[in-house]
C-alpha cells in the first residue's frame, strides 16, 4: 500500500530557498508568481493490507523522523 507524504515548512519559518526560486522565476519572465515555498515529497510503500494500520504507520514515520515538528508540517494521502 503506497502513500505520498508532503513535508512543508511552517508559515512562520523563513524559506530562503523558496525565495531564491521565486526570484529566479521572476528573472525568467514568469512575473505572476506571488510566492514560492519549497518542501519535500516522499513515497512510502507499506507492507500492510489494513489501511487504518498503514496510516498509523505513516503518521508515526512522519512524526518520528520525516518531519521536525519545530519547523515543519506534514500531510499524506494513499496513492
Amino acid at each position: 500500500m503506497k502513500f505520498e507524504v508532503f513535508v512543508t515548512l511552517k508559515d512562520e519559518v523563513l524559506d530562503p530557498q523558496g525565495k531564491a526560486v521565486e526570484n529566479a522565476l521572476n528573472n525568467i519572465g514568469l512575473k505572476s508568481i506571488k510566492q514560492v515555498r519549497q518542501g519535500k515529497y516522499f513515497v512510502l510503500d507499506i507492507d500492510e493490507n489494513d489501511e487504518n494500520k498503514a496510516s498509523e504507520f505513516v503518521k508515526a514515520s512522519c512524526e518520528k523522523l520525516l518531519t521536525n515538528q519545530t519547523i515543519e508540517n506534514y500531510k499524506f494521502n494513499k496513492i
Partner: protein
Amino acid sequence: MKANVIVFPGSNCDRDVKVALEKFQIQTTMVWHQENTLPKADLVVLPGGFSYGDYLRCGSMASKSNIMKDVIKHAENGGYLIGICNGFQILTETNLLPGALLRNKKLKFICKYVNLIVENNNTPFTSKYKKKENIKIPIAHNEGNYFADEKTLDEIQSNEQIVFKYCDEQSNINEESNPNGSCLNIAGITNKNKNIIGMMPHPERCVEELLGGSHGSLIFQSLIN
C-alpha cells in the same frame, strides 16, 4: 576528567575535539555511533561535521543512531554534553535542546572567525569567561540559522539558556553582526539544567595561538575547573 567523543559517518571534527580535550588533560575515548553502550565518562561530545551526509535534515539521522539512547540517558542523569555545529543540530533533533537550525539566511556556507558575547557565564561550560566578554571563535556551517517560536524564545531567555550571541568588535548585537539570520543572534544555548550546551562556533579550532586564536580554551578549562 573523562570524555567520550561520538563518531558518526561524516563527522569531521571528531579528532580535532580529541586533540583539544587532551590538551586540557581530559582523557578521551572515541565511540562509534553503532555502539550500544557508552564507556563511563563525565562528558560526551557530539562533534562537528556532516553526519550521514546531512541527509533529510542536518543531524536527523544521527539523532536516531544506536549510541544516542545512551547519550540521552547520560544527559538525563546530569552528565555534561556538548554539541558543536553538527552536534548542536543533533541535539535539537533529539529534543535535548529547544529550537532548530535552518539553512543560513543568505544560503551561503560561512567559514570565518566571528565575535561572540558571553551572555551567561554561570554554566559549567562558560564559568572561566567573564559575563558579556567579547570573544572570537570560528564558525563553519551552512545550516546555523537558529529558529524557535516566540514562546520558546521567551522561555530560553527567562531561564538564562542563551550562552553565546553573535556580535561585532564593539559588542553590538544586531542584524549586521548576525552572520546567518539566527533568532536573537543566538550562537549557543544550554538546556534548563545547564548540563547540555549546543553551539555553532567551533571552540576546538581555537585552543592554540599558533592556530589563530585560543578563546575556545576557556570552555574546556571551565569544565575541568
